[in-house]
């Protein structure tokens, strides 16, 4: 069993895994790292086309009240959401990529998942930069944007905690990864990313939908992300409390569970 102090000694290994993940990302592509910028830009462009021209959804006004950019509102939430899901989904793959090696040599397998999380974090940071540039160009930016990276990091860590658990489960049962895919798809539409919370009915089929969806674990992260960037507001105390609760809870459980079970992966065939 390893202690946290031992884990700290493996920082170079974590960095190594992160580098490998990043290096592999745009290998054999002509534009290389430009894709990290092109992709989010394309996302914004597509959403603008679909929801600004074709669907004509009514977005909430931005803080400066000048325009209503639904695509931007979506992109804002999407950055937070994709950091969370990329870590959660990726953890299973990162674990798989080192499990063969872990059977032959000892190292804490967490490092592979930590490294992957860092790599995804770099991607998210670039997306955040794209968002920042757009916001600046629209003159819809303020000091509250500084909260955005914090929200982003917490969302990633929330995903990491869950990721540590599903990575272990996936080594036992391969269908975990498919299951996670479906669950994430469903939960994606249960948080206000492609819609605004206002369009939700208070009640449907006798259920207080709006209130129930407030308890969606990702809701405070998405909402706080919107506050910090789109609405230029300081995230509410309730949002901060909820984010802290989910992040700390998932990390504590995830690390504990992973350490308890990860020694056995060297014996899995």
């Amino acid at each position, binding site marked *: 069993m390893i202690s946290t102090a031992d884990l700290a*000694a*493996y*920082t*170079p*290994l974590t*960095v*190594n895994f992160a580098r*490998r993940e990043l290096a592999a990302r745009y290998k054999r592509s002509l534009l290389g790292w430009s894709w990290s910028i092109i992709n989010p830009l394309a996302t914004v462009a597509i959403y603008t086309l679909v929801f600004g021209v074709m669907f004509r959804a009514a977005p909430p006004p931005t803080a400066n009240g000048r325009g209503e950019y639904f695509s931007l509102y979506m992109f804002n939430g999407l950055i937070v959401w994709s950091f969370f899901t990329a870590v959660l989904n990726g953890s299973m793959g990162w674990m798989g990529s080192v499990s063969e*090696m*872990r*059977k*032959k*040599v*000892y*190292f804490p397998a967490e490092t592979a998942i930590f490294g992957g999380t860092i790599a995804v974090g770099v991607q998210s940071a670039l997306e955040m930069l794209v968002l920042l540039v757009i916001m600046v160009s629209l003159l819809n930016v303020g000091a509250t944007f500084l909260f955005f990276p914090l929200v982003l990091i917490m969302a990633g860590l929330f995903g990491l905690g869950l990721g540590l658990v599903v990575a272990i489960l996936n080594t036992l*049962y*391969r*269908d*975990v990864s498919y*299951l996670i895919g479906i669950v994430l798809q469903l939960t994606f539409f249960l948080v206000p990313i492609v819609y605004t919370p206002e369009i939700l009915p208070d009640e449907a089929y006798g259920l207080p939908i709006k209130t129930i969806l407030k308890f969606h674990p990702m809701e405070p992260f998405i909402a706080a992300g919107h506050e910090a960037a789109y609405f230029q507001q300081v995230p509410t105390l309730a949002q901060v409390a909820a984010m802290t609760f989910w992040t700390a809870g998932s990390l504590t459980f995830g690390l504990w569970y992973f350490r308890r079970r990860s*020694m*056995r992966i*060297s*014996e899995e*065939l």
Partner: protein
Amino acid sequence: MTESAISVQGLSKRFRLQRDRPSSIKEAILRRNKSTVEDFWALRGVDLEIPKGSFYGLIGHNGSGKSTLLRMIAGIHEPTDGQVVVDGRISALLELGAGFHPDLTGRENIYLNGAILGLNTRQIESSVDRIIEFSGLETFIDTPVKAYSSGMHVRLGFAISVNVDPEILLIDEVIAVGDEEFQRRCFDHLYALRRKGVTIVLVSHASGLVESLCDEVTWLERGVVQMTGPAQEVVRGYIGRVNDQEAERLAEEDDGVASPVEEVGEEGTRRGSGEIRVIHVQFLDEQRLARSTANTGEPFVIRLWYEALFPIHDPVFSIGIHHENGTFVAGPNSQIGSVDTGTVEPGKGYVDIVVDRWPILPGQYFLSAAVTSNDMLHTFDAWERSHKLITQPGTSEERFGLVDMEPRWFPPTPHEPA
């Protein structure tokens, strides 16, 4: 009492061998009790104290648990019971290419391995050049390791693990793969490390290697310690057991191979370390049908059945033929015969010695058979005049002496002075 680098206390390891383990949740639910779990105890109550700075050997047969023990010292598996206390930074060379990522280059893998060993980037950087030089892979160091041969894997792996300033070095057989020059460099380096006070644990079934390198040895059998003590003593005990078991097994399956030759227990002697053995000698004709005697002037095949317990690199097979009066008639071997025996893998097999026209004249002879190391200094197994080989008259008309020289006679040519 000296300080221990590694202390193994009451260590047991159980592996669950699960047949048809459910690999999906559906399977797990549907066949809840149908998968059979079998327990396999790889180690049972092993106690060991490996003193700091010692060169320690672990020997035993395949499946004796010696490799599992080494892997548990390395921290790969979790003990089922008992504990392993390690004092010092471990560098391990447990398997071919362990810790290498196939898609990364040799250089990248050096960094990856250094990081796995818990080194920081500066520490790794300071030893990279030394590692590359030691491995002798300068030209290939920026090539992905998936293109490496097994020998190159070992060179790089060994170069890394000994050049990262380990306090404890664990080695499992693998060094046997490199070429001789590299192996010698490895051993020199191991000695140098040991002088620096590094604790070295070597797992091997090459008992000679263990005996010559190690101070102390533990012999494991079916996960239980059989003997611990000075290298020579333990290795002797181990080899004694190997020989006894072999003799027992041979007695049991005596009718396994149809050998027309009787072993002459009284006259023949047998010696050797037993890693590879000649288990039977068979006489055959050109169609490879069994026969009991050789016929002078006719095709004759001597088939040496061997059984290797471990992979043997370039063994030399040889036979000897003595006349019953003691004259040594012939002693061919595969090396003189320019046969590359390669690496003989564990298991049974045979070597055929084909003689197109048997040159030996009728009479009673004794056959010897042996397998030795490449340099012929080490005898794995040697039967001395143990098999009776009767030669009967065949197509040859020769009658005197021991061999048919197949001479060509020319008619008398009168000498006419010029």
